[in-house]
C-alpha cells in the first residue's frame, strides 16, 4: 500500500513541477530546441534543478542499501551503447522536436491539451505497442551487420 502512496505523491510532484516550470508549454520546449533561432534556455534550468535532488538520492541508493519499501535499488546499468539506444533516441528527438512533448508532459497534457494532446498520446501508445517487435528486428539487423 505504501508503495502506491509513494507512487501517487511522486507522480503528483512530477506534474506540479512540470506545471510550475512552464514545461507544459510546448512552445517553450521547442524554444529550447531552437538553438539557432529564438533560443529559450528555460529547459536547461529545469533539467539542472531536477539533477540536484537526484544526485543526492543516488548517494543514498548505493548497492547493499534498500529503499524504504524494502525493495533493492536498481543495479548500475550496462554501459553498452546499443543500436536500440542510438536509433531509439534519434526517433525520440525527432518526435520531441516535431511537437514539443516528451512522455511525461504528454500524459500531463491529457488534462489541458485538448484533442491535440489526446491524439498525441494515442499515437505515442501505438508507437510503444510496436516497439518490442521493432526492437527485435533492429537486434537481428545489428547482429547481421
Amino acid at each position, binding site marked *: 500500500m505504501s*508503495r502506491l502512496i509513494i*507512487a501517487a*505523491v*511522486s*507522480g*503528483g*510532484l*512530477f*506534474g506540479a*513541477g512540470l*506545471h510550475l*516550470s*512552464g514545461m*507544459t*508549454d*510546448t512552445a517553450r520546449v521547442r524554444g529550447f530546441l*531552437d538553438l*539557432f*533561432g529564438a533560443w529559450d534556455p*528555460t*529547459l536547461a*534550468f529545469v*533539467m539542472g534543478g531536477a*539533477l540536484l535532488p*537526484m544526485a543526492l*538520492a543516488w548517494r543514498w*541508493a548505493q548497492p547493499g542499501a534498500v529503499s*524504504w519499501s524494502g*525493495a533493492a535499488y*536498481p543495479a548500475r546499468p*550496462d*554501459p553498452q551503447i546499443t543500436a*536500440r*539506444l542510438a536509433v*531509439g*533516441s*534519434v*526517433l*525520440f*528527438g*525527432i518526435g*520531441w*522536436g516535431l*511537437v*514539443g*512533448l516528451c*512522455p511525461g508532459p504528454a500524459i*500531463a497534457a491529457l*488534462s*489541458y*491539451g485538448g484533442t491535440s*494532446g489526446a*491524439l498525441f498520446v494515442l*499515437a*505515442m501508445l*501505438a*508507437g*510503444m505497442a*510496436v516497439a518490442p517487435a521493432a*526492437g527485435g528486428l533492429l537486434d537481428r539487423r545489428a547482429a547481421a551487420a
Partner: protein
Amino acid sequence: MTAWLWGLAGGLMIGAAAALFLLGNGRVMGASGLIGGLVDRSAGSRWAEGAVFLAALVAVPAVLSLWSPVDTQVTPAPALLILGGLAVGLGTRLANGCTSGHGVCGISRLSRRGIVATCIYIGAGIGTVTLMGALL
C-alpha cells in the same frame, strides 16, 4: 519572477519526485518506462504503481490549472501529432528511456547510456526544429 527561476523551482520539484520514487520504491522514475510497462504488460505485478503514478501526473496539473491556467500551444496539425507521437513512443521504448529516465535519473548517476541518449535526442530535436524553421 522570471521564467528561468520558475524553471529551476519546477525542476527541483521534478527531481524531488524522482528522488522520492527511488528512495521510497527503489525504482527509476522514467515516464516512458512506466507508460510502456502498461502498454506491453512488462510492468507485471507493478502495474498498479505505474497506473497510480500516471493518474496523479494527469490530476495534479488539472487541479493546478484551475488557479493558474496552463500556457500551452500544442500544435493542432493531426499529421504532426500522429508522426510525433509514434516517434516518441517507439523511440523512447527502443532506447529504454526518455527525458526523465535517461535525462534526470541517468545523468544524475553519471550513467554512460543516459548521457549518450540525452545528447542524441537533444541533437535530433535541435535538428528537427531547425529544419522545420527553415522549411515551413
